[in-house]
C-alpha cells in the first residue's frame, strides 16, 4: 500500500489527502473528504451520477484518479448549494418535481450549473442533448427538462437585475 499525501482544492477549500495513487476522485471525495453528495452509479463513466466540475467543466469523478487533480479546482454539489435554501436550479427541480429517488440528481445539478453558465438560453433539444449524459431511471426526464428551462429563465432574470 503506497499511500501518498497531496492537496486537493475542493469547493474553494484546500484539503489534505493521504491516499493511494490509484484511488478514484469519486472515492476520495466521498470517503476521505466525506462529500457524499457525489454519487457513484456505474464506475465506468456512463451514468453521470458522479459528475463534478473540474475547473468549472463537468467531468466524471469515477474516471479520474484523485492524485491527478492537484492544482485543479474541484466543485461538487455541496459547493453549488447555498448556505441557506436552494440554488435557482435546485429550487426549479423541487418545484417541477424533477427528481424522484434523487440518486442521479447531484450529477444533473453539477452538469447544468456549468451548462447554463455558458448557455443561458437553451432550447429543449439542447437541454435534452446535454441531459442524455445523465441517466435517470425514475422520472422519464420531462420534469427535469421543464425545471432546467425554468431555472434558465430565473437565472437570466437574476443576471439582468
Amino acid at each position, binding site marked *: 500500500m503506497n499511500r501518498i499525501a497531496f492537496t486537493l482544492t475542493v469547493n474553494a477549500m484546500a484539503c489534505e489527502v493521504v491516499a493511494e495513487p490509484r484511488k478514484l476522485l469519486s472515492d476520495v471525495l*466521498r470517503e476521505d473528504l466525506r462529500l457524499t453528495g457525489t454519487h457513484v452509479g456505474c464506475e*465506468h463513466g456512463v*451514468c453521470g451520477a458522479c459528475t463534478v466540475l473540474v475547473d468549472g467543466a463537468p467531468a466524471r469523478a469515477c474516471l479520474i484518479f484523485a492524485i491527478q487533480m492537484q492544482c485543479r479546482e474541484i466543485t461538487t454539489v455541496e459547493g453549488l448549494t447555498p448556505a441557506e435554501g436552494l440554488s435557482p436550479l435546485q429550487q426549479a427541480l*423541487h418545484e417541477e418535481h424533477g427528481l424522484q*429517488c434523487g*440518486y442521479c440528481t447531484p450529477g444533473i445539478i453539477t452538469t447544468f450549473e456549468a451548462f447554463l453558465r455558458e448557455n443561458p438560453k437553451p432550447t429543449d433539444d439542447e437541454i435534452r442533448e446535454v441531459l442524455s449524459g445523465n441517466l435517470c431511471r425514475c422520472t422519464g*426526464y*420531462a*420534469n*427535469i427538462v421543464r425545471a432546467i428551462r425554468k431555472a434558465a429563465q430565473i437565472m437570466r432574470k437574476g443576471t439582468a437585475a
Partner: protein
Amino acid sequence: MSGVKPEDTARDGFDQIGKPVPRKEDARLLRGKGTYLDDIEVPGALHACFVRSPYAHARITGFDLDEAKAAPGVVAVVTGHEVNDWTNALKMAPPIEGLQPTEMTTLPVDKARFHGDPVACVVATDRYLAEDAAELVYVEYDLLDAVTSYDAALADGAPLVDETLPSNLVSHQKFEAGDIARRKAEAYRVVEAAFAMQRMTHLPIETRGCIALWDDGRAHLTMHIGSQAPHPMRSMLAGRLRLAEHQVTVASPDVGGAFGQKIIVYREEITVAALACRLKRPVRWREDRLENLSASLQARENAVKTLAAVARDGRILSLEAEITEDFGAYCFYPANYLARVIGMILTGPYRIQDYAFEVKIALTNKCGAGPMRAPMAITSLVMDGTLDAVARELDIDPAEVRRVNMVRPSDLPYVMPTGEKLEDVTPSECFERGLEEIGYAAFRDAQEADRDNGIYRGLGMCNVIESTTYGSAFYKAAGIPGSGHEAAWVKIEPSGAIRASAGLMGTGQSYETPYAQAVAEGLGVDPAQVDVVLGNTDISPYGMGARGSRGATAGGGTLFLAALDLKAKMLDIAAALLGLNSPSELELRGGQVLRHVGGAWSETGLGLGDIARTAYMDPLKLPEGMEPGLEMHRAWDPPQMTYSNSTHFCAVTLDAATGRVDIDRYLIVEDCGTVLNPLVVEGQQQGATVMGIGGVLFEHMVYDESGQNLCGTLADYMIPTACEAPEIEIVSQNTPNRRTPAGIKGMAEGGIMGAIGAVNNAVNDALRPFGVVAERQPLSPDYIRSLLRVTG
C-alpha cells in the same frame, strides 16, 4: 374492528389530499445531503468482495484460497463450505399444485448455475484490497453444457439446471372457465397471435449493497440495506441467519431506485451478515455495476401465444393463452408467481367468459428472475395486441374491435372468468376520450395519404387494467403465498409534534409527501407539520412493504385511517375540555378546534397543542375511561384487488429503410381514483411510461449460447436517455373507488403496461402495408429490418 371504516371515508372535497405539494424529501436530496447506503460512515468497517463464476454452468471441483488469505489487508476468505454451515438454505416449497419445490444454499459448493453466481467472498480492510485479493481466489471448474433458452431447457435430454428436479419445467399450471371447444365450433374464425418480451433488468441507478453491524453484547444484528419491504426482509434475514426476529433490525436509508429489485434478501447480503456475526466486526458491501447487471434479479423474458375464437363483428367468443417464462437459474420467488398473475388478469377490460390459460416456467442457466415494476407488464400488450390481430384478420377498424368487446359501464361490477372483479373502473370512458383527444379519424386519413408518399405512420392503442393493490384474498385465489395487509401508526407528542409511519419503504416514489398529506387530512392539520418516518423495523409497524402499486392505497390509506381515528380521540378530549357532552359539533382544521354553531364554524380557542398536553400531562382531565397519550395504530387488509385503468395512444413514424422508430405523439387518459398528490402521480405516470418505452425499443439483457452475459456495462444495456424519452400528454379522469380509504386506487405500473402495448401496436400498425407483424421485443432497428427484408 373498531375505528373508522374505509368505505366511510370518501368525500367530495378534501383539504390536503389532492394538493400538488412539492416534496419534503427534496430539501436533503437536492443539497447532496441525502443518506444513501454508501453514505453511512461506519468506523472500522471491513469490505466484502464476491468472487463469481465466469461460466454459466460448471461443476465446482475445488477452491484454493491460500494466496488470497495471505494478501494485504485480508481478514477472511470464505466459500459456501463455511457460510452454508452458518446459515439456513432458502426453501421455496409453497403448497402449490404444479410447482416443484426448490432449495438454494447461501453459496453454491457443488456447481455454479449462471455467469455471475457468487462462489466465494473476500473480506478486507479496504474495498480496493478486497478486490485485489478476490483476483487471487482460484476456483476449479468442470464445464457443463448450459441451457440458455426456454425451448432448450425443455428439450429432451437437456442438462438439468437444478439436479434435484425431474426436469427444467419448474412450474406448470392450467386454468379453464366456460366451454372453449363449443365457442370455437361456433366461431367465424380462430385468430392466432404471439407476443414475447425479452430479458430485462431493473437498473436502479444506485446498485445494491448493505452494512451489517453485529452487537456482540446484545446479540443483535443491525442491517443497513436499501429495502422496499424492511419487515419481510427482517423476517427472511432472521430465518436464514438462525436469529429471532427481535435480534435483527433492518434499517433502510434513502434508496436510489429499486423497481422490484430490492424486496428479497439475496445470498450476498446473507453472507455479509453472517460474516459480521462471525467476525464480530462491521462488514459492508457495495455491489458494482457489472455485478448488478449480471447477478442482481432480472425480469420479464416471457412469451404468450393466444387463440381467439371470434364472431364476424370481431367479438371474442373464447380466448386461450399459453404463457411461458424463462425464470433463470434459481427460484428467489415461487416460479409461478409472475406468470400466474398474467393469466389471472389477462382479459383486462374486455367481456370474455370462456377463457383458458396454461403457464409453463423453465429454469435456465441465466441469472434468476423476479418481479420488476409491472411484473404482469405483458398482459395489456397480449390482450390489445390480440384484438389488433383480430382487426387485421377480419379487416375491421381496431378501435371498433375494442369497442365491441369492452366492458360497458352497465356491465359493472364485472366478474372476470378467473373470478377477479372489476368495479369502479372506467375503461370505455377513458378509451372514448382518448380517441377524441388523439383525433383518431383524422389520423387515419393522414396515415393513408402518407403511405402513398412512402411515409409509414402507425397508431397504437392499449387499454390497461392495472392491478395496483393486492389484498390477501387475491394471493389466496391465485395460489401465491403472501399477505396483502399494511400497517401504520400516527403519534402526536406532548408538544403537539406529529409523527407517522407505515411498513412500506420508498425507493424514489415520494412517499414522505403524500403520506404527510393523508395524515394531515385525517387529523385536520397542515402536511408540513407531519414528519413521516419509514424504513426502520424498530420504528415502523410490520407491513408488507412497497410492491405492486400499493403505496397510495395500502400505505396512504392505512395512514389516513389511523389519522382519522386519532382525530376522533382528540375531538373527544376537546369536547371534555369544552364541557360538551359530545364532539359532534367539533372539527379540527389547521390544528385548531372549531365548533359548528349557528350554521358557521367558529374558533374555540383550543388547539392541537392543548389537546396533546392534556392527553400526556394532565390525564385527569380526559373523558372517563380514556387512556392517556395520543398514539393510534391501524392495520388494513385491502379488498381482493384494487384496479386503476388507463388508455395509452402512441403515434410513431417508421423508417422502412433503417427500421428506426420515432415516437411522434404519446397520450394517456387515466383513472387512478382519488389522488393524494397530483405532482407525484404525474411523475410516476411519466417515469413508468418511459421505462415501458425503454423495454419496447431498447433494453435487452443478452446472453450468448454458452450462457455468457453480454451486457456487463451501461453501454451494453441501454435504457432511455433524455433524447429518446418523448413528451407525454396526460388526461386525468379520476373516479373514486368505493371500498378503499378516501377512494384511492393507486398507480405506478400501468404506464409500463400501456407503453409496452401502445408502442408495439403502433409499430405493427405502421408495418401493416408490408404484411408483417412484430411478435417479439425489443423492436430494434435490426429486428424491424429483419421483418422487412422478408417482404423484399
